[in-house]
């Protein structure tokens, strides 16, 4: 395939991943480092890294300030919450929880969305129209409101949050993939494959999907941050993860009334969210700039 410039009509295919990776020397070091410390290590090694059990606390040690404040101890460097649980451990485990929730939601939403998007873009016609209407409806569902109603119906749980997030996410993937499929399917190599007798599924999987992967990866990275924010908002409203899970959003909700005297209960999870999402966004931006600039529109 000839390399196409970026200055022509922007909806043509982009350089493949391998080519981008060869561009050494412009890795986003700072966000990657932050991400590693904030998200990946705690997520993988939380039980080993965290000093205490995030679910166990003792009421006599409640609301201890961070170590550098008067009344704080080095045993609980970031202080304790209102049930005496160590903040640092809860934040570390919270990274794991947040990451898990986001990844599962994005994975499931992504698969559903990609699949439907491929079908929609490839076959067109009434299938496309129907699916795109579903996308519209899905995008018009006021997420937070529906989350409130759903949680009132079935109670907060891991599954409920994933379902809500997934409903919110799949449509964006479907739309993106459909758009790309629409343009890719008109190209020569697809026509050649069809002439050669390839089945529809084979074409979609073998030819179209790989060209779409770039955008998917970028979108997913851009979205993890947003999903983490969304989950924390839902938890704040009581429509997210159930107690006593150490979810960052839940921790902020728990600490909101204490914001004046026990500010650390809300502040540190809030900082954690901010830094994590920041790093993810920076990473996503870099990925997008190098893999798939047309996604600037997303």
């Amino acid at each position, binding site marked *: 395939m000839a390399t196409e410039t970026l*200055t022509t009509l922007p909806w043509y295919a982009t350089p493949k991943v391998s080519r981008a990776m060869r561009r050494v020397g412009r890795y986003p070091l700072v966000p990657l480092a932050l991400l590693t410390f904030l998200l990946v290590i705690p997520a993988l090694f939380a039980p080993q890294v965290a000093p205490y059990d995030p679910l166990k606390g003792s009421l006599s040690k409640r609301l201890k300030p961070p170590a550098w404040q008067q009344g704080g101890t080095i045993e609980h460097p970031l202080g304790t919450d209102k049930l005496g649980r160590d903040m640092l451990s809860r934040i570390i485990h919270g990274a794991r929880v947040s990451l898990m929730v986001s990844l599962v939601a994005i994975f499931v939403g992504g698969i559903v969305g990609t699949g439907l998007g491929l079908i929609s873009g490839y076959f067109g016609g009434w299938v496309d129209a129907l699916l795109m209407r579903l996308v519209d409806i899905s995008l018009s569902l006021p997420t937070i409101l529906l989350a409130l109603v759903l949680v009132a119906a079935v109670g907060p749980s891991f599954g409920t949050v994933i379902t809500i997030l997934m409903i919110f996410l799949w449509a964006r993937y479907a739309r993106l993939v459909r758009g790309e499929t629409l343009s890719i399917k008109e190209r020569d190599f697809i026509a050649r494959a069809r002439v050669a007798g390839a089945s529809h599924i084979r074409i979609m999987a073998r030819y179209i999907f790989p060209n779409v992967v770039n955008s998917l990866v970028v979108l997913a990275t851009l979205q993890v941050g947003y999903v983490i924010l969304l989950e924390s908002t839902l938890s704040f409203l009581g429509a997210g993860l159930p107690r006593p899970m150490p979810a960052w959003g839940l921790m902020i909700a728990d600490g909101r009334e204490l914001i004046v005297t026990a500010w650390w209960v809300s502040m540190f999870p809030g900082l954690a969210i901010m830094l994590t999402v920041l790093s993810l966004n920076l990473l996503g931006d870099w990925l997008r700039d190098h893999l798939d600039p047309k996604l600037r529109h997303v």
Partner: protein
Amino acid sequence: MQRYIARRALQSLMAIWVMTLVVFSLARISGNPLDVMLPLEAGPEEYERVSKHWGLDQPLHTQYFIFLSKAVRGDFGDSWKWHGESAMGLVAQRLPATLQLAGFALAISLVIALPIGVLAAVMKGNGWDTAAKIIALLGQSLPPFWLGIMLMWIFAVHLGWFPTSGRGGIQYMILPAITLGWFQVAVLMRLLRSSMLDVLDSEFVKLTRIKGLAEWKVVWKHCLRNAAITPLTVFAIIAGGLMTGAVVTESVFSWPGTGQLVVDAVRARDFQVVQAVVIVFAGIFILTNLVVDILYAYLDPRIRYQ
């Protein structure tokens, strides 16, 4: 063009109808409203009596049919929690407050995002660009509810510049609007910047430059117009986001809008009001999308023939 409009309008109607079905079912699964309406002292006879009064003893599909037939006339029934008010009446009562807040928030975010976004694109790689990037990133990373609480404590309690809550003159709107609009600044700015970048780089603009058109003319007249297409689409999404983001902001600042209304209604299992609010919100969103799509089709004729 006519055909396109008709087709899209019909599809929007379908979307709204599906919304009613979804909301109705969800609201019903969330349980028996009588458990919230009636006091602990109420025995089975009270349950029966009140259930009959509100038609809750009917089978679900009958209830849905009655609901739908009234809804198309704009009658969403009477509220179960705000006794004496109709569900739609409550929404109409509270909606102006939310729209006002959302409008103000959008205005604030546009005022900040527009100049910075455009400047960042035009003077690429400059201080503006970095500033824009930083603001955008911060905006998208801070949890809005946390920001709201922090703003309230710093500006309303410690400094006393603004009131903490409620609605009145413009000073009541500032903190909630900043909280609400914060996230959108980032989105708008990135969007403007990237779409401006694309257009600035395009062949078409290169041509106008070659033609010898003044730089500012190039930027404002040609680029902004073409760059405006994508933000237009996102505007619809942002408007919807603002309205649902209002739920959190209204809770924190006790702003008497539809966001607070729906949170209270969900807790009180006041289905009538929940249905009314969700359908109105979704309806507004779908209709905004419809208008934007039509505008889009007008601006870019290729769309009509998709």
